[in-house]
């Protein structure tokens, strides 16, 4: 059983560090301890701050720039495959579809740039495919993958207008950085991929503007990509999961997906709010920092909690509901802060002392929400008869969720696949990868078809590149 995650994960800031970081006045200086996440989120920073320069050097030497063709051998650590004795489920992607019918004569590779900005992360990545079907032996190459995150003060969510401003003001610098890191010239590119949706309207629009201008300037076709499909295809490519049930968990989405008949079909999903949204909103109630991400800080607090408090548990078949849980735990937190000693769950009725901490609340929230996620995933696995699970989306980085999923999958003798921060959290490379698959199947977008859409269901996309 190899369940090692990417080493850098361990160096993420602790909750206290994150807190200190946020209280520090401007100008922005990332924490010294921060490495992979801090560096990804701030890779584009051309701030002359020496600390930041150091950080870039660290990243450059270990992760990105010194490996010209950054391929997945480096990444095999990031894959969690809990049962190696499985039925060859990690054979990789074997496809009968001809992905090369539009290949340019004499050219042996395809290269795409991807632009993502559907929420508060702006990402640009460049990917390369060789001719032929993708497989363990013929894997996609990540040439660069840079990201910058819009961060708000503790207790606040992000407004679309400010997020859009962030994207607009960074997008050109990120594209430039991405091209430089990849060492790719514009002549090598085959297409420009962008997120068409789903997501927040203004941020999506701010990014597609750059994509359209670039496409005309370089005379390259545009490919609009469904954000969720980007997550799924990148997850499959990175981990080698062949035909998994996909748990897609992020700030805006909570879905259990499985492939059939050229569509990624949604078997289960939230009936109200998304998991990431639920965690973010609770983080706001607690007024904990949004850096590096609210969910990450809840995870750190939860690690220190131990008292389990019973919360509502609402699973409806393969669907689930979270708004009731959020309302309930918000109330508990508010009673705790206000010292409402009549609350018997929080306060010992004899001593009037709090018997529950903020850490316990985070712990209980995670235990309850994740148990629900694992349960609906398992139900979908039983329903479609598969024993592979792939976790994608920002919340997929959560180690507790991954561990719980692993425990479930072990009981089914199956395999779990997850990626680390670079691919779990919204990024440009997944848009490049999924877009390139569409490109190889001959798909092209006219300018008039590049208007972004806030609502774009996963099952609307015809998955032409799979059998």
């Amino acid at each position, binding site marked *: 059983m190899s369940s090692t995650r990417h080493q850098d994960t361990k160096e993420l800031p602790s909750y206290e560090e994150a807190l200190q970081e946020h209280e520090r006045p401007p100008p922005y200086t990332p924490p010294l301890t921060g490495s992979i996440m801090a560096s990804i989120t701030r890779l584009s920073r051309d701030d002359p701050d020496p600390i930041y320069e150091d950080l870039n050097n660290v990243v450059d030497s270990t992760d990105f720039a010194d490996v010209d063709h950054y391929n997945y051998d480096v990444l095999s650590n990031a894959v969690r495959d809990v049962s190696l004795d499985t039925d060859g489920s990690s054979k990789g992607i074997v496809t009968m579809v001809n992905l090369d019918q539009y290949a340019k004569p004499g050219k042996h590779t395809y290269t795409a740039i991807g632009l993502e900005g559907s929420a508060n992360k702006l990402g640009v990545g460049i990917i390369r495919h060789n001719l032929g079907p993708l497989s363990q032996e013929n894997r996609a190459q990540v040439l660069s993958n840079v990201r910058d995150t819009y961060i708000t003060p503790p207790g606040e969510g992000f407004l679309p207008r400010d997020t859009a401003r962030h994207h607009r003001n960074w997008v050109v610098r990120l594209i430039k950085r991405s091209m430089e890191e990849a060492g790719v010239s514009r002549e090598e590119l085959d297409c420009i991929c962008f997120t068409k949706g789903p997501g927040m309207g203004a941020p999506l629009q701010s990014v597609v503007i750059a994509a359209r201008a670039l496409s005309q300037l370089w005379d390259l076709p545009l490919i609009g990509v469904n954000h969720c499909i980007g997550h799924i295809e990148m997850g499959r490519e990175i981990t080698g999961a062949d035909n998994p049930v996909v748990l897609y968990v992020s700030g805006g989405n909570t879905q259990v997906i499985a492939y059939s008949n050229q569509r990624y079909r949604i*078997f289960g999903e939230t009936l109200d709010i998304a998991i990431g949204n639920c965690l973010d909103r609770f983080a706001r109630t607690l007024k904990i920092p949004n850096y590096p991400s609210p969910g990450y800080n809840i995870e750190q607090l939860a690690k220190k909690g131990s008292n389990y408090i019973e919360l509502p548990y609402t699973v409806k078949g393969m*669907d689930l509901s979270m708004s009731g849980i959020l309302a309930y735990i918000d109330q508990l937190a508010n009673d705790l802060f206000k010292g409402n000693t009549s609350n018997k769950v929080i306060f010992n009725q004899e001593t009037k002392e709090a018997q529950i901490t903020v850490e316990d609340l985070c712990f209980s929230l995670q235990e309850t929400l994740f148990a629900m996620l694992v349960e609906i995933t398992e139900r979908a696995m039983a329903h479609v008869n598969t024993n592979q699970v792939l976790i994608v989306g920002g919340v997929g980085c959560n180690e507790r969720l991954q561990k719980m999923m692993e425990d479930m999958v072990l009981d089914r003798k199956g395999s779990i696949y997850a990626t680390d921060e670079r691919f779990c959290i919204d990024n440009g490379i997944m848009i490049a990868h999924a877009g390139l698959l569409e490109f190889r199947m001959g798909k092209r977008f006219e300018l008039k078809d590049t208007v972004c859409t806030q609502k774009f269901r996963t099952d609307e996309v015809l998955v032409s590149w799979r059998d």
Partner: protein
Amino acid sequence: MSDHLVELAKSHLTNIPVSLISQGAESLIFTTTTHPYMETSDEGQQYIVKFRPPKKYRHPQLDAQLTKRRTLAEARLLQRLYGADGISVPSIIAVDARNGILWLEYIGQQIENGVSSLKNYLWLEDSKADYESLLRAVGDMIARLHQMGIVHGDLTTSNVMLQKHGSQWAPCLIDFGLGFTSDLVEDKAVDLYVLERAILSTHPVHSDNYNSWLMEGYKKGYGKDQGKFKQVMKRYEDVRMRGRKRSMLG
């Protein structure tokens, strides 16, 4: 399928030769030809043993709570539904709640692609099959369930088993672990929505037909009480709208 869970089940089932037929999300389903207390006269008669193992991934407190709650909820609902007019569910043979075990009447038989669940039967795409009347019958039965104030909680085509009544297939509802009693229109509407979504994802090619047949049966199942039916329908449309309108941010 996990061996240690099977061993655990067997440790609670001394002298009962069981064979695992499926591993659902929360239970292992075994069949056996040994009745827990009756002498079996009929050779080949089978019984279902449903075992809810502890879930390692869940916090022990939550796990104990859910396992107990669901074993009992299922048993109680089956007790209420068994013998009710126009409803078919398996009968209870024995309950070992402390070990999470339910003994149930065996429902269904083998068909070309596995057990005779509605899911497998629809997957056969049998041109001679009368899917329409079958799905109407399922809708009708769900309506009766709802009129009794019972919500299934996990309506899928896997959870409808088919039994031969003469030459006709008749539906039988199973797996009430997520079921509960409720007379709220909302709960019934969500129950239907969950089914609609399951049809959509599991039987995408014919989902429109299947869903409309189900709904016709559901309407008919309300008999004279069309007012109640309309209330559920109205809320069902709301629930669907919520589904479509739901924020779909990345």
